[in-house]
């Protein structure tokens, strides 16, 4: 008998060491995430995967499942908190979906749809963030950064380059690149790096294609992020 916990009343089997999120997705239950990626250790910063386990709020990606736990995830309370977290991410950056080429394939946007976020509600920060177009192949639009650090991790742990890092703190935290000039062109970044393909939002963009994919054929046009992510799990 494998161990199991209850997710919104449904039994979910798990193996020792597996997180709530991993076990849930494997069993066909979607718990949302932005900073989690199956090829990297849990990061736990976006907090979208927040669930209530045994009455306590925890990050599902970073919390090992426990036998017999009752976990609440797809409830009005948890989804309401997720919606609020999404609203926070939207107001702190400059997310102008209408003219963003990532629109339709952006995970932040797709989660906004999934959790029926109709307004970003809070005061918009409208920060002044730069665009770095120095690199011949790749453009960085920092307006859209959500600090998931997937690029940081991919560049450091897989590409072996550490092109990206975070500096600053609190609401002034921001991404920098590995060059004294601060320009991506002065790093050893390549468009073939994993880090060039891992951004869940529209920060790291390949120059040129822009709006090459027509409306209707973008990642989340046809199917929700919920069904897409569960499908990825199956493959």
């Amino acid at each position, binding site marked *: 008998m494998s161990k199991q916990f209850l997710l919104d009343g449904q039994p979910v089997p798990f193996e020792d060491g597996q997180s709530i999120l991993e076990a849930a997705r494997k069993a066909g239950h979607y718990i949302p995430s932005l900073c989690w990626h199956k090829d990297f250790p849990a990061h736990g910063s976006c907090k979208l995967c927040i669930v209530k386990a045994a009455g306590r709020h925890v990050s599902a990606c970073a919390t090992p499942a426990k036998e017999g736990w009752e976990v609440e995830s*797809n*409830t*009005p*309370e948890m*989804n*309401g908190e997720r*919606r609020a977290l999404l609203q926070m991410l*939207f107001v702190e950056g*400059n*997310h*102008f*979906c*209408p*003219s*963003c080429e990532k*629109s*339709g394939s952006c995970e932040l*946007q797709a989660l*906004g*749809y999934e959790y*029926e*976020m*109709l*307004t*970003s*509600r809070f*005061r*918009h920060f*409208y*920060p*002044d*963030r730069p665009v770095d177009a120095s690199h011949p192949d790749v453009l960085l639009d920092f307006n859209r950064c959500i600090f998931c650090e997937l690029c940081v991790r991919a560049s450091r742990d897989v590409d072996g380059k550490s092109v990206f890092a975070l500096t600053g703190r609190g609401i002034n935290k921001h991404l920098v690149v590995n060059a004294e000039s601060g320009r991506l062109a002065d790093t050893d970044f390549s468009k073939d790096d994993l880090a060039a393909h891992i951004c869940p939002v529209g920060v790291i963009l390949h120059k040129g294609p822009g709006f090459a994919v027509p409306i209707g054929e973008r990642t989340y046009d046809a199917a929700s992020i919920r069904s897409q992510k569960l499908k990825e799990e199956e493959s």
Partner: protein
Amino acid sequence: MSPARPPEGARTAAREGGGSPVSAPARKLRVATTSLAGCFGCHMSFLDIDEHLFELVELIEFDRSPLTDIKEVGPCDIGLIEGGVCNAENVHVLRAFRRNCKTLIALGACAVNGGLPAQRNHLPLSECLREVYQFRPGIANGQIPNDPELPLPLDKVRPIHEVVRIDYFLPGCPPSGPAIWKFLTDLIAGRTPRLTGGLLHYD
């Protein structure tokens, strides 16, 4: 807790019809619409309900709107606001709508979050005005327009919920005709509007 009444966790109510025909309410609802700092795309999308327009006018009557010659909003059931707040006049119109409309709706990306015009927000207003009216090639008599008839621009473009209380939000750039139809028919029928079935978009 928020000024809005979003469909918080209304997941259990997932069975209402998508844009189903509506039975007429006891009296026609009075609806006003306006565009602040928008592009009229949301009004165009409103017209993209196509033939439903004829159904709709059986259920509502228009007050102030770009489609009518009523210049000032009067007491209404529903107000639809397109566009964000970019100048002093927008503030006056928005407040007049809030005073007169029982239900005020932010229609489209600009009303909801400032939209594209808010991309000037990280720039000083003086830079924008000078660049456009004073310092560019192909200009004669370069100056910043300053007639008292012109409303002054605000330093930043604001979503309308930062200026008055808003009851509902209908995002999209613009929200599609079917989304607007679903939203309005929900509202007219007395259901909390929800954009289900792929009708919710931010672009």
